[in-house]
């Protein structure tokens, strides 16, 4: 099919972008790296009469870290930048892990972290860890600014809480608590460069020998990235043991709602939720033990 005609603007400031977005009406779309949007438009899955490119907006670029407030990632920041940023690597190793795993070099150099979330694919590689780490997103429209938890962000495949005239401006990740750890685990049929068939992000904290802030997020096994809350509850307040990790992982697997598609069968996915959750819990636990003194 023919790529339909559309207009294109590349504003320099957030205000101009918001103005264009509001004025653009129904057919207006934000363009970040375009690695999802252009593919969809090329296949007629998304229509647009106007694209508002946000990569030229200075204020949306950059990664900032403050030990007390945490991490802020601007909406125009590339996944490649997240994967290599020294503060992310040091204080948010699981976030870097997920970014590094996303797509391939070429795509990471085009695509944004915000785009990965706003595209709301069930398999989005960066969603599970950010969910597990309790990330929030800042959203701006001409009416004002709001901040919402990533837990409340995804509504369905390709659907988010964002209103048509809103721009996600930054992703905020709280600082890691003392004696806490996170992990990202994934599996894909092709090995090194591939969309995940299942992915899991986990966060936990050790309070003495008791586990706290247990958060388990699953990708590619439900219409949206999801939390396995029953599994979390099993672990919250309990003492670490391998048997418990097994039990919690089995619970997460029960909670998942995978389908069969060209990448994997539902049955295999369910099995892998269990394996990957256990591995993520083990890695997160090991990191928490390591971070005891930090």
């Amino acid at each position: 099919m023919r790529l339909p005609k559309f207009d294109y603007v590349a504003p320099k400031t957030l205000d101009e972008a918001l103005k264009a977005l509001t004025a653009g009406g129904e057919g207006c779309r934000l363009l970040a790296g375009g690695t999802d949007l252009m593919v969809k438009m090329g296949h007629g899955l998304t229509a647009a009469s106007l694209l508002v490119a946000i990569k030229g907006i200075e204020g949306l670029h950059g990664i900032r870290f403050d030990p007390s407030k945490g991490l802020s990632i601007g909406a125009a920041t590339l996944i490649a930048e997240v994967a290599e940023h020294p503060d992310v690597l040091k204080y948010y190793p699981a976030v870097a892990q997920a970014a590094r795993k996303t797509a391939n070099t070429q795509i990471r150099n085009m695509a944004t972290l915000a785009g990965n979330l706003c595209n709301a694919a069930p398999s989005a590689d960066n969603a599970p860890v950010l969910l597990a780490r309790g990330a929030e997103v800042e959203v701006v429209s001409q009416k004002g600014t709001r901040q919402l938890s990533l837990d409340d962000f995804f509504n369905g495949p390709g659907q988010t809480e964002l209103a048509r005239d809103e721009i996600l401006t930054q992703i905020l990740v709280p600082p890691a608590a003392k004696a806490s750890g996170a992990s990202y685990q994934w599996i894909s049929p092709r090995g090194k460069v591939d969309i995940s068939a299942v992915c899991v992000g986990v966060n936990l904290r050790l309070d003495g020998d008791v586990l706290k802030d247990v958060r388990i997020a699953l990708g590619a096994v439900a219409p949206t990235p999801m939390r396995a809350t029953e599994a979390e509850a099993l672990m919250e307040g309990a003492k670490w043991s391998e048997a418990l990790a097994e039990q919690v992982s089995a619970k997460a697997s029960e909670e998942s709602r995978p389908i069969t598609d060209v990448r994997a069968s539902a049955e295999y996915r369910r099995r892998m939720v269990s394996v990957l959750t256990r591995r993520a819990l083990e890695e997160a636990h090991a990191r928490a033990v390591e971070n005891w003194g930090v």
Partner: protein
Amino acid sequence: MQTYAIVGKNVPRNDAEAKARGAALYTDDLKLPGMLVGRILRSPVAHARIKHIDVSKALALPGVKCVITGEDTPKVKYGNWRLFPDTQDEYPLAVDKVRFIGDEVAAVAALDADAAAEALDLIEVEYEELPGLFDTGAATQEGAPVIHEYCPNNISVNRKIQYGDIDKGFSESDYIREDTFHVHAVSHAYLEPCSSLAQVDLDGRITLWTSTQTPYIVQCLLASTLGMRENDVRVIKPFVGGGFGGKMELRPFEFCAAFLAKKTGRPVKFTLNREEEFLTGRRRHAMTLHSKVGFKKDGTLMAKDLKIRLDGGAYNAMGPTATFLCGNFGAMLYRYPNYRFLGEHVYTNKPPASAMRGFGAPQSLYATEVQMNMAAEELGIDPVEIRLKNAQVTGDKIPDVATISSCAFKESIQKVAEMSDWKNKRKNLKPGQGIGIGCYSFISGGVFNWFNTQFPFSAAEIRAYADGTVHYLTMASDIGQGSDTVLKQILAEELGLRMEDIRITSADTAMTPQADLGSWGSRVTLMAGNAILDAAKKLKAQLFGAVSARFNLNVIYELECKDGRVQAKGRPEKGVSFGEAVAMVQKANRGEQVVVRGAYTPRDKGLVTPAFSFGAQVAEVEVDQETGVASVKQMWTAHDCGTVINPKSVEGQLNGSIQMGLGYALSEQFVMKDGQTLTTNFLDYKMPSALDMPPSKVVHIDSYEPEGPMGAKEAGEGLVSPTAPAIAHAVHDATGYWCKDLPITPEKILDGMKQNKK
């Protein structure tokens, strides 16, 4: 061992710099003034009668110059087996019926790609759907719908081979096993999607630039489908980004480009996109192989009975040749005193399968090699030993088929076992680790002439000049495998010239000597190489005559072309430079240009090939026992390709083969539902990437093929076969699971492990 000046050296590839700089022009890079863009409308249904087509709305769209359907064309069927016109079952555009999702129904030429794309949406086609057949079982059932009227049982070709006494062989066996294997279809996935550009000249002749492995075949079949004379069609092959067997027939877009160019009087170009390639491109045959083998207790092979069904898809394409070759490969590698083969090529309502690197060997040898490893295990014999016991050797005869004129198979097996530390490794592996072996043999070109060419299989023309240069013309097609470089090396060696002294013109059917059957079946080095030697011999006779006269040499003197000179052997002072020798011949002929021609056609070489390659490969894998993910840690290969003309080029073939074998074994497959291909991009079609490549070591066994140019035979295809069985064996070693149903996915490994525990 003979020493050479240029053969055997890592001469840089002719095309390397142009490709690295992006200067190499592929068909889609070519632009002509007034050029139109072509697109093809494809069937959305798997099996249907066409009731009615209305192109009026498409024609009315601004920018659209021409729309054609099957009804507008001469309706001439084509196919590569011209000798058997019954097998020619394809129309360039559907006539009355469509037979797979993607079948070509109409074509559009427009001012730009957008208009062409939009025009496709405006063509109205009314179909009367027929029941579809999506596997060979359904297609061969009594009363199944008929896909081609001429072929009521949907089995378009069958081939039988039999020698020895199969019943006696089995009755004398101590151990017999029967297994059924399913191997799947995979994509060539060449990096350059198909592209063709046609132009009509003032006299109405056609020039077609096209991404093809076989310019000569395209020339002939295009002429017949257009109702033109063969020499009114000129086919030129620009740079080609890979073919692997997927670009060796006439294809509908080639016809449509030419036909639309004739109708509009303007150049027309078609370039497929990747989605079209995955949806409708050729593919390797899926097959069901039922194999029964018998052994003596000591591992001696007694008999083999092989029955194969090929899932051919909607048309024959190169399926008949693949059917034939499967049977031959089934009898290769080992000495089967008694052998029987039945191969059946079955029509289904799926995209046509065709030739793909290995041409029947990867499938046939998967069954052979996995079964060999199973038998070794059950008989308690080391897989290396059982192979050495049965391996073919130089001089072996395959009844009615061929005599093996050179074979370093045993040496390859021994070498690969040594390189991989086979015996120790097998004893010392940790849980989840495994090591496995697979072997191959392949043809160096075919001796069969089903295309029914009236010309030699390969030909060469050499024009020699007084300035010391030569111009070498050949129809042989470099499609990225590097044949231009290798053929130049052979010529340079033979004439004692340097690479830069040789200009090459290749693969232009109007300019280069008739003919060359193209790049497939690993035929080019041997056949085009032999044609060069034939031409060079004639040139040398003239040069030697002139030098002999000039120095008044005793008739017993031998002469040679060496280091840019033509001279008496051992008496370099009795000689002149190559250019001076050419000038002398030219003078003697009163100025006439010095031109020689040479040719090669295999004769009295049996039914299959003039020469066989052999080799053995070992794979080490590690399987994650919880996820079932298998990763290949290391590959070792030892092989016999005769004289290695360009080591780097051979290693390139090996690396590419491992990449393809890896995908075949572990990750690539067309996921299909009711004839619809669901994996239409590289996201879902899982081809291994550079990051997935395991480290690999190779040894070329020193051997010499008497029928090959300077002792060379093939290295381009055979190497793709051993990888999947070696990996399957290693996965078995690691997990206990035998894969009889490719690909070896993590899910299958986990299920297999579960069953073994029970």
